[in-house]
């Protein structure tokens, strides 16, 4: 099991970040390195890549605010 963590140091901690879209659905099979979600910060977009290959479990839905370092899902 590998946690999916919001990257740190890409934007100012005070800026509001949110997952704009999950590119895969809960339960989908994903490959390590694939772009699995996009995070929007102040109208700029950042990519979230799969840290491992396996089944995606989404813990934080799209359009929800997130903070750097937060766990938003896992891959089994």
């Amino acid at each position, binding site marked *: 099991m590998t946690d999916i963590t919001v990257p740190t140091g890409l934007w100012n901690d005070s800026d509001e970040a949110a*997952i*704009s*879209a999950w*590119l895969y659905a809960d339960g989908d099979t994903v490959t390590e390195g*694939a*772009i699995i979600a996009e995070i*929007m910060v102040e109208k700029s*977009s950042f990519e979230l890549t799969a840290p491992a290959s396996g089944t995606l479990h989404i813990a934080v839905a*799209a*359009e929800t605010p997130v903070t750097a370092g937060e766990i938003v899902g896992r891959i089994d």
Partner: protein
Amino acid sequence: MSSPETIAAPRPTRRLTIARAIAEAIGQEMERDPAVLVMGEDIGKLGGVFGTTTGLLDKFGAERVRDTPISETAFIGAAVGLAASGMRPIVELMFVDFFGVCMDAIYNLAAKQSYFSGGQVACPMVLMTSVGGGYGDAGQHSQTLYATFGHLPGLKIVIPSTAHDAKGLMLAAIRDPNPVIFMYHKALQGMGWLGTVQRSITDAPEGDYAVPLGKAAVVRKGSDITLVGLGLSVHHALDAAARLEKQGRSAEVIDLRSIAPLDRETVRASVRKTGRLLVVDDDYMSYGVGAEIIASVCEAGILLRAPPCRIAHPDIPVPFTPVMEHFVLPDADKVSAAAITMLEP
């Protein structure tokens, strides 16, 4: 002996938003063809308010990815001139609602350039623009205006419903010698603050391919009724078709993908089979896409088993208040309710 094609490993799939698909298509064409350049408001450093030019400034520099002032008249007019002199400009009109100040460049200059010059001066430009509401942005930022542009000869009009089609249509649009209006629906862009239809996030080949301009797609096969949509309304139709299936009714769904040229034959072939036609459109109703599709079917003398029907935005400005806006905008509930009425014996 097997040919190399038959033994090639399957291409790994991936997922893209329509925004990424558009940016990828533009980037690939800029790499292939030095005549391609992009201009618009906030398309450089920001990468486009709707993500359509993400990463292009870093890759191609400020000469070819030009942030402009808020001056649609100037930069869209400039694009027509650039196109006449051999460049292939892509310009972004941030919201289609802003067409008023620059319409002369679009419909009197771009759309007529080839015709007025006897075909000697083409106008290979793409005007990409965001359309649609549903997120409380009021009447000057929520229109689709498909029919307003579709009515004018000399323009091609495309509207993708998925990332796959967005990339293929953009590649085809940039290469086309005519001005192409590329309308992308905000609710499908994958920008969190606008909501996103998950079905619009699809796989798309990393390499080169084109979705032909002017060819509709049958995106769901069915036999009892034909639902026709474009952009976001394709997804309303698909959602409605899934509900109808649970009631034992089979709906065919057509994604127009382009309204100029309009693929009347694909619609007619479907309605010849189903005998029922429901058009779903989020533009204003009167003189709109729905009327054109219904007329195309009726003119062909196709026998219908129920009167044809259109769902569209009523002929009022798009309301700001969310309750009012969603009351008037098409959705899957309205589509399935109308379809059920048409399917009653």
